């Protein structure tokens, strides 16, 4: 029945190998997978990350059997995927790909209702579900349902792709570089929205990317694969950043691991500073009294639902009369509890402010977050981890710098010559 609670499944790879015959030459074919064993608990996002040709997409496609493993098993909730009827298996697994693959000849609503249609749901229920999902992914149903894919932007298409994958409420989602084809700003927004969605959905998700930042941001678990299809490391993102298992992993995650770790902490992990607020139309004198003794002589103007409108300087609050909207100056960036500290920091730096406003899902103010608080968190965690392979990395950094200097040095004399 439609209202059955959404269920997540476990996915377990057991010694899964996929060999491709590389036509004569001794070179191992790209995309092969070598004895992959890992287990993804129900309701978690597991990111498969690695350079191109490492077999991450192959691994993903073996779950819904678009590719059949050469040997080994993939268990979904303990049942070997190979024993299930293939179309029935696939209809129970959400599938999102980079190019989206929407059906150009069907409307957006029809596209979203694809799997319900395959499952033979009655028409009205298909439509209802499609509209519900369009709203879920932030596309106004009335505006989008009757359009064709060609009439949508890349970001909108990608949302439809996610909605379509969710249509039959599958316990598992496979996502193959789902946000790879959109520009960085849209990607960031889609990532954040998806994480927010996942908080409610709690699906088991296998997510493929070649972008380590995306892997760290999206993953509850990260599997780093290397060319040849071997698993280089499998663990929580913070584990992988703190102690890379090998030279390869250390190099793959990059030299800025410290900063990257900020992207693993979310706003919710910090104790927020309470916000001094004044409700729109409230008596000014009352509001003014509230600021007295506060470190920041500003009051945050909110509407009846506690949603922020703007900052009002203590000096602008008159002795009498109501607090009005005209007193407010534009707001600081709005953050939510799921925002990573890295994003929060860059938003605050970008807006050139010290304090961000944290809001909940309804947009109501929860508290304030300052740059200082993030800096303090960085100091707390700095030096806590002794990175494996740190020495080689320092050497490499030094070399990089030398290279840069050389490059600059090579250019400079030319310029001088031209000027002379």
């Amino acid at each position, binding site marked *: 029945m439609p209202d059955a609670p959404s269920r997540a499944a476990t996915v377990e790879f057991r010694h899964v190998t996929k060999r491709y015959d590389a036509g004569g030459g001794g070179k191992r074919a790209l995309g092969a997978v070598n004895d992959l064993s890992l287990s993804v608990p129900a309701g978690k996002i597991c990111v498969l990350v690695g350079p191109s040709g490492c077999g991450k997409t192959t691994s993903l496609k073996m779950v*819904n059997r678009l590719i059949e493993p050469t040997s080994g098993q993939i268990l979904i909730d303990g049942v070997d995927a190979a024993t299930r009827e293939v179309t029935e298996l696939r209809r129970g697994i959400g599938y999102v790909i980079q190019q989206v*693959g929407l059906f150009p000849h069907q409307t957006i609503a029809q596209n979203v209702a694809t799997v319900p249609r395959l499952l033979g749901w009655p028409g009205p229920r298909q439509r209802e579900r499609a509209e519900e999902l369009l709203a879920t992914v932030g596309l106004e149903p009335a505006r989008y349902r009757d359009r*064709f894919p060609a009439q949508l932007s890349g970001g909108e298409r990608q949302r439809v792709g996610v909605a379509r994958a969710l249509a039959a409420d599958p316990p598992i989602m496979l996502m193959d570089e789902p946000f790879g084809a959109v520009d960085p700003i849209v990607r960031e927004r889609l990532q954040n929205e998806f994480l927010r969605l996942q908080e409610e959905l709690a699906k088991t998700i296998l997510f493929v990317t070649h972008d380590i930042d995306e892997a760290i941001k999206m993953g509850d678990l990260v599997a780093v694969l290397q060319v040849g299809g071997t698993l280089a490391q499998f663990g929580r993102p913070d584990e992988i950043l703190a102690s890379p298992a090998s030279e390869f992993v250390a190099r793959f995650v990059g030299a800025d691991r410290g900063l990257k770790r900020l992207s693993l902490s979310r706003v919710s992990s910090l104790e927020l500073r309470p916000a001094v607020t004044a409700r729109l139309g409230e008596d000014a004198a009352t509001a003014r009294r509230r600021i007295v003794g506060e470190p920041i002589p500003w009051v945050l103007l909110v509407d009846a639902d506690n949603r922020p409108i703007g900052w009002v300087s203590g000096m602008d609050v008159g002795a009498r009369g109501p607090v009005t909207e005209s007193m407010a100056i534009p707001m600081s960036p709005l953050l939510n509890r799921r925002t990573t500290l890295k994003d929060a920091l860059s938003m605050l730096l970008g807006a050139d402010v010290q304090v961000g406003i944290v809001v909940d899902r309804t947009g109501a103010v929860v508290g304030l977050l300052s740059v200082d608080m993030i800096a303090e968190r960085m100091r707390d965690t700095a030096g806590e981890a002794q990175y494996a392979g740190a020495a080689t990395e320092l050497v490499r950094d030094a070399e990089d710098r030398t290279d840069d200097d050389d490059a600059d040095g090579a250019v400079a004399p030319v310029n001088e010559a031209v000027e002379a």
Partner: protein
Amino acid sequence: MIRWEWIASNVDQLADATLDHVVLTAVAVGVGFVISFGLSVLIYRNRRLAGPITGTAGVLYTIPSLALFAFLVPFTGLSFLSAQIGLVSYTLLILVRNIVAGLDGVPADVREAADGMGYGRARRFLAVELPLALPLIVAGLRVATVTTIGLVMVAAVIGQGGLGQVMVRGFNFRNDTAVYTGAVLIVALAVVADLLLAGVGRLVTPWSRPRSR
């Protein structure tokens, strides 16, 4: 010089000839489409058949129409069947090529998404690939139809030419009016058929219309 009174007194005959022309064309394109569709599905399922099938259709296409009709007479006579054998064989190359190109043109990501969501093979073909191939299939039908309307005229040599008959009789009796009238009606028929098919094509592929945003 055009003798209008000839046209006026032969309206019935012209109408019959036009109808014949339409029937000859429609049957030829219809039968040609069914055969071509079958051949295209064979190619779709087994790529190696593409060479032999389009090769054979290509050979048929290069036979001069007069020669083909003359060749068929000893076997099937001065009959509707002879005309159809010739006409149908000329549609095959155009239609097979376009149907195969249409099916090939289905984007790989669309196919992958269909597979990934659990379409069976037949269902994917009918519900996804075929609709997406429609624009090229319709384009093929338009070319085949217009070509066939022209070729029907040639079938007049075996007494099956529709408006071609009118023209042939015009030549024989030095009746310029009949020649011109036949020619004009054939051209008009081709234009109308083309526009009609284009309209149908637009109707069945609403998604490929220019965006209206």
